């Protein structure tokens, strides 16, 4: 019985991931992250994704503060923040977030304030979408882990 539950959850994960790849939300760099995880660093993917979320949220918050300031003029600073966002999003395989940040960065290079504000909104939207998806992924994962643990401990046979 439990085994069936695990299979179903595993199918859910596959489906969710496939959908994210299909939508272009994630790309192959996300898979490469998995390759870096092993017995010596078993929580690597989880840890690095959480660091990504922490840092990205700070960056987006700073960007909003900068742009909301009526006397704002420091486009260079915006560029620096965006370089960081583009870089980390690329590394983690967050393709859509990366792409919208690149567009945002172009607007900042042209000192285009309305363009930047638009860019920020889009970036925030994409970022939150990704975060929610990752959340869902991890939730399903933790269910699977729980079920597997119960199987291992002999709470039910397949």
């Amino acid at each position: 019985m439990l085994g069936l539950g695990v299979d179903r959850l595993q199918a859910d994960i596959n489906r969710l991931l496939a959908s994210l790849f299909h939508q272009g939300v994630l790309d192959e760099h996300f898979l490469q992250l998995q390759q870096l995880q092993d017995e010596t660093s078993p929580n690597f993917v989880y840890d690095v994704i959480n660091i990504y979320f922490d840092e990205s949220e700070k960056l987006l918050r700073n960007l909003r503060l900068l742009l909301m300031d009526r006397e704002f003029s420091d486009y260079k600073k915006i560029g620096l923040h965006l370089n960081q966002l583009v870089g980390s999003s690329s590394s983690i395989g967050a393709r859509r977030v990366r792409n919208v940040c690149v567009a945002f960065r172009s607007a900042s290079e042209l000192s285009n304030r309305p363009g930047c504000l638009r860019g920020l909104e889009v970036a925030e939207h994409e970022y939150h979408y990704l975060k929610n998806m990752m959340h869902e992924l991890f939730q399903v994962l933790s269910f699977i882990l729980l079920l597997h643990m119960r199987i291992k401990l002999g709470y039910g046979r397949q």
Partner: protein
Amino acid sequence: MGMAAESQFHVLAVDDSLFDRKLIERLLQKSSCQVTTVDSGSKALEFLGLRQGIESNDPNALSTAPVNHQEVEVNLIITDYCMPGMTGFDLLKKVKESSAFKNIPVVIMSSENVPARISRCLEEGAEEFFLKPVRLADLNKLKPHMMKTKLKNQKLEEIEELSKDENGTVAAAAAVVPEIKGSTKAEIEVLPLQQDLLLVQQGDQTLSTNNKRKSMEEGISTDRPRPRFDGITTAV
């Protein structure tokens, strides 16, 4: 007495972003390197034992501040280009200007593909310039560079051991290297499962498997011989 030969390379990784530090550390560990990460160029210099104008292995140097004379053997420095304060380029220059450390290969990383920047770094003595995201295959290119300095250091040590008495003032390369521990093991052993979990059905969509380096795609050109882009990838 001579040290037992250290089979691992020790890399000093410099990046102001925690995310990038985490990533480069894992990549290097996966390439069987020992890693020390620091978040700034000045901390990197401190780690190496360099102070402003004063090198810790110079017995004639006067140091007014208490200096930790621990010498560590570093086989490679890999640094982000864009950092507040001391940039990766500044760090590169300082290392290459130092008589003690100029032979340590330095690699620069950047998420921006700026040909002029790349040329400048290579001209200043960087061995390689990696565009982020850095991949395992990129790091495999570093082994030959690190091998060179390691062999050189070992030879130097042998010579020093032969010519020093027991009270020699030259410290042997420290065996103790600050080790950055990976995450603690999960309490529940479900590792094999995790490998399977993130399978993606590749049937109905095409994942881009283009592993070409971005700089190749964008066709940067520098006058200098660029880092080699041989097609050999040895991804794990």
